[in-house]
């Protein structure tokens, strides 16, 4: 019997979250039944979650893991890095560089992506984003910033 599987991990994370929210909610004041304080409702919800996640962990640990899809590490890394770079670049250098770099990196989530293909694709996406958000919706975000 394998005790440590994905369900157990998620169940434990939920349990930790429930305990954190419950202990924090206590500090907010429970109020009285007539006038509930800000901590009362989150505390009740967090306790319920703690009980359920404990049950989930116990049940999941007692049975073998259901055959699940393997994690897509490549997609996870490329999309994660792409979004991170977007968030890092956008406030510093503007929208267009952020979309350009983000798209190039994101494109490599797919095994078939080639370097040239990702650059061309990224150019197209930049044009589309500028057309929709800048000209279409009139979004007040600087397209370029800093360097110029």
């Amino acid at each position, binding site marked *: 019997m394998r005790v440590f599987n*994905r369900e157990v991990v998620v169940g434990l994370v939920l349990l930790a979250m429930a305990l954190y929210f419950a202990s924090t909610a206590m500090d907010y004041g429970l109020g009285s*039944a007539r006038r509930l304080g800000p901590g009362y409702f989150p505390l009740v919800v967090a306790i319920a979650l703690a009980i359920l996640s404990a049950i989930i962990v116990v049940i999941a640990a007692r049975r073998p893991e259901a055959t*699940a899809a393997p994690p897509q590490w490549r997609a996870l890394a490329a999309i994660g890095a792409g*979004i991170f770079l977007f968030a890092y670049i956008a406030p510093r250098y503007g929208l267009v560089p952020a979309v350009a770099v983000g*798209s190039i990196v994101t494109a490599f*989530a797919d095994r078939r992506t080639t370097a040239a293909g990702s650059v061309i694709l990224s150019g197209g996406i930049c044009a589309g984003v500028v057309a929709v958000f800048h000209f279409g919706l009139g979004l007040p975000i600087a397209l370029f910033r800093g360097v110029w």
Partner: protein
Amino acid sequence: MEFFTVGFPVAFSLENLFYCFFGVFLGTFIGVLPGIGALTAIAMLLPVSFYLDPTTGIILLAGVYYGAEYGGSTAAILLNLPGTPSNAVTALDGYPMTKNGRAGIALLMTSVASFVGGSIGILALTFLTQPIVSLALSFSSAEMFAAMTLGLIAAATIGQGSPIKGVAMVLVGMLLGSIGIDLDTGRPRFTFGMMELFDGVSIAILAMGLFGVSELIASVNSGGSGYRGKITLRSMVPSREDLRRSFFPMLRGAGVGGIFGPMPGTGPSIAAFLSYALEKRISRRPGEFGKGAIEGIAAPESANNSAVQTAFIPTLALGIPGSATMAVILGALMIHGITPGPRFITNHPDMYWGLIVSFWIGNIFLLIINIPLVGLWVKLLHIPYNYLFPAIIALVCVGAYSFNQNPFDVFLLLFFGFVGYGLKLAGFHPAPLLIGYLLGPMVEENLRRALQSTQGDFIALFDRPITAVLLSLSLAMIAWMTWTALRPLMHDLSKRNSPN
């Protein structure tokens, strides 16, 4: 009468016509592509809808929702890959029809069935909403609390996957919903000291992360092969026999959809599945099902479209969303400062009737873009997925960044994307989380008000008949959930304790 006097001028404005068409077109597009669901598309468009007039924004989002039900059948029929989960049943008989060389007829009949189901659903929406509203207007906060609790628990326990995980997801959503300043006392809660969280977690960020980003991570490298055939208009002409055999299944499908659409937790997928099961059971030729029976595509396609339209009944009449998609649409309303609930229609008749008229317009648009343009959608299946997903990621990022021009929102999006993917890997469905997130604060508010009026007496909440029934049903569902969760455990234990 308001349908014509109030709804027509709103829905037929140039802007609303344009966004209705854009919505259903995009919905069909998203529906045709396997791997991206309507919820992802709606979450993606949420930032765009903030820049529009609220009515226009909702017309757009709703159009994507029901448009995806039309488009979803295309890939199910041609490739055996359902475009949205509610079209999975359509593949059972739709794909065999393709193999029998009847793909054209299958595509035509699903469009017709979708239109029939959609129309009957809109009629139900038009005539059932008002009576529910008049009932709900007499609700006090105790009854609203009870109705929302039942809605939440039903959404979590009836949907896909294990009920106990569903309820856990609802609770997580409720905790996330309590992040931010407590409206009653002004005290910030669970902000982790971050200023950005004082207004709470935005529903757009949460939905785009949990569904958009995580779904893309999961589906990037799962693309199948495209359909290589061609569909001509001539091949779509059904025989008299096809029409005769589809007629009653479509009507029954619309009925099944009308029943399960408004119920929390069920929605289009379950409606489609049940209507298929019903047709198979009452058919005189059950052996033909699974081998290309036309009833097997007509009934579920009618059912899921009817369910999609009737899902708006509880959403608009009570402000209680039955599915994550409805929760996102309600969230869009709330961002525009509109309070959902029994007073919504009285306060915003132009929006309500405009929306209903736009549903008719949208369904007619869909009939037009699905039948003559079917060749275009078939070609769309040739587009490799790797051209699309970076564009979607870029759209989601720019959308998140556009709220406050704060990179924090984009990092939060990434965080929820990873959370959603992790949950998916462990077999947790994030949809109930979103419903809990949206309803949690409303449940809390109504509970507080109800307890104020009963002077803090919890038992008095059960005094009113409607409250008593709704809360007892909720308790029964929790009991059922606990039992189904613990049964295998008990079984194990009793085996271990027995002598051998």
